[in-house]
């Protein structure tokens, strides 16, 4: 379904600020799979998501989504296939427009938007019905500007909007990181509900081990631009938060293993 092959991306190449953000990343994600991407800061996980979304072109490699080779597609063209939710609850929605207006825009993402009434009574009922599934009471506030809502409410709506047209791929980039713990838990719950109900294929970047273990079908861990762990099927089923923490520690310790450590081992490891 999603095939990423030998993806490379270096930012500021040839300068002192050069960062090899993706190094030979290959990944196959099957339809209906909810994949969590975890990793240390700067490990390349958001870069991977942005590469798939089309925020930049990779230096090398190929990205296929279903039958489409989307490697050279611009971001707006990919938006017809890909839904996104960002870390910032204020991104992804138009603050001055009402809830129903924002959703009406999302309903026509990637489609023609002719000069006709965007919100008919039928569409309004449909919006109210879907918004009701969030169980936040927002169905009674459809005419309120979305900018008047809390971060959690906006993020839940953004999630609903991103998944409205059942995108072929839903990308969630630390979409609960800016929320307080209780709201983050609520948005996580809504995420799981929407993805399960709509049978979506999704990739979620997160720093929350709890989310990765509880929500996803598969966990990918990145470190220094590479995939260092891929837990799926029975390995994912048995993994616990403490296991992920240990893996984090392990990959970080690997950075401390230098020539001087090798010399110690040569002397001491008998």
């Amino acid at each position: 379904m999603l095939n990423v092959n030998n993806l490379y991306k270096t930012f500021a190449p040839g300068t002192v600020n050069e960062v090899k953000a993706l190094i030979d990343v290959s990944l196959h994600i099957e339809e209906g799979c909810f994949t969590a991407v975890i990793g240390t800061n700067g490990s390349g996980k958001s870069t991977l998501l942005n590469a798939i979304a089309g925020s930049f072109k990779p230096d090398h490699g190929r990205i296929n989504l279903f039958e489409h080779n989307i490697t050279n597609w611009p971001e707006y063209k990919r938006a017809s296939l890909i839904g996104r939710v960002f870390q910032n609850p204020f991104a992804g929605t138009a603050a001055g427009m009402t809830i129903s207006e924002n959703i009406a825009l999302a309903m026509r993402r990637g489609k023609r938007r002719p000069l006709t009434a965007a919100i008919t009574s039928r569409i309004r009922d449909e919006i109210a019905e879907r918004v009701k599934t969030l169980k936040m009471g927002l169905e009674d506030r459809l005419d309120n500007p979305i900018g008047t809502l809390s971060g959690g409410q906006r993020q839940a709506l953004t999630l609903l909007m991103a998944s409205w047209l059942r995108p072929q791929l839903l990308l969630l980039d630390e979409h609960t990181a800016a929320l307080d713990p209780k709201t983050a838990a609520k948005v996580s719950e809504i995420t799981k509900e929407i993805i399960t109900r709509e049978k979506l294929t999704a990739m979620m970047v997160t720093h929350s081990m709890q989310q990765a273990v509880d929500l996803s079908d598969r966990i990918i861990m990145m470190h220094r631009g590479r995939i260092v762990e891929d837990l799926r099927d029975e390995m994912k089923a048995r993994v616990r938060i403490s296991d992920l923490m240990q893996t984090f520690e392990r990959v970080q310790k690997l950075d401390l293993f230098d020539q001087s450590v090798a010399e110690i081992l040569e002397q001491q490891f008998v």
Partner: protein
Amino acid sequence: MQFRQQEKGKYLLVHASGRLDASWADHFSSTFKEYIRQGQHHILLEASEVSYLSSAGIRALVQVVKSIMAVQGSFQIIRASSFVHQTLQMTGFESWLKADFPDDLPAEDTEAQIPDESPFELYQLNGSTAMQLSVPATWVPWKAFNSNNLSSIRFGHQDFALGIGAPHQSDQDASMHMGEFLVVGGNVIYQPPREGDKPDFLLPEKAYLPEMHCLQALHCTGDMPHLLRFSPKGNKTYFGLGELAEKVLTETGSALAAFVIFAEIDGLVGSSIIQSPGLLKEDRIIPFPDIKEWLSFCGERVFPRQQALIFGMASKGLDGKKSPLLAGSTMHKNLFLHAHAAVFPYLPIESGVIKLKSVTEKLFKGPPPMALLHLLEDSRPSTGLGESTLIRGACWYTAINTNQEDTIWA
């Protein structure tokens, strides 16, 4: 709640004040469990200023008493307020109550009386005076794997060993899974050679004796007739592995000794095999960075406040020779050492004389081991992690006899 504590002889006298209810119960039990961790196994709770005790508070008291009884300690509530006294009487816990302080409670603080108290206690146990060492498998890094060099060993209750091996049935299967192991009283703890895998363990039960196919093995059979207890005193807050090994060699007066340590960890330094040496087709020198594919390194001092079960062998050396099986210490003069440590969640043990068998039985009834490390010394200037250090615990040890000196010393 507020607590003030005083050490008085073998007792810790804790003056508590406030309400022992649901809001304070967790704080109360964690405070008292920390006392037990610090080696205070006889606790007197002076409760004249404890104004209220709820069922949640009683539950916290029960948890504390259980923890103290597990280390053969004692717990008494002295001069309880009338409310606490009445509540404990009516709920059937009056056995905890004492009207006044015990007769053997010293009047003054013990610390002031004996400032030079030794951090070590030595005990003589039953058993033969020395163990017999054999070295049935002698692989050294990074020699080619040859199944003819494997040695299958069944470990019984008097066996102690460390090395590299696998518990699998066939030689071919075993070759893929060669990892470090240690054996204490026949109990085998084995680390599969893959990062992230948990240590496995095999325990002798009835007719079953654990069997390992060993690529490398230092194997001793016999008793551990000596016991060394160590705990922080004064400025002495931890014990280095090398320091304990030197103490063992001094006490046995032997050139070669074996020891088992069960202790709370201050920090361990070590590595683990992460790729089976059974995959080596030819003799190799594995350079950096390829060595990272074969060995992991802890990178920092690891597993503080957990519990280590260590089996090791120590020697003062032999005529300036090097050993392929004992690493020369870089931090202790004339010390050669090979030790493996299994890490378990913290488990307090009683003070004084304690049998190794009772410790291992208790240990393996609890949570499984978290890791197994081949202990190393890291004496790199400025960045070095030092040696493994321990806070308090027990060390059983013995002198070693062997007729394989040529194998041990190159």
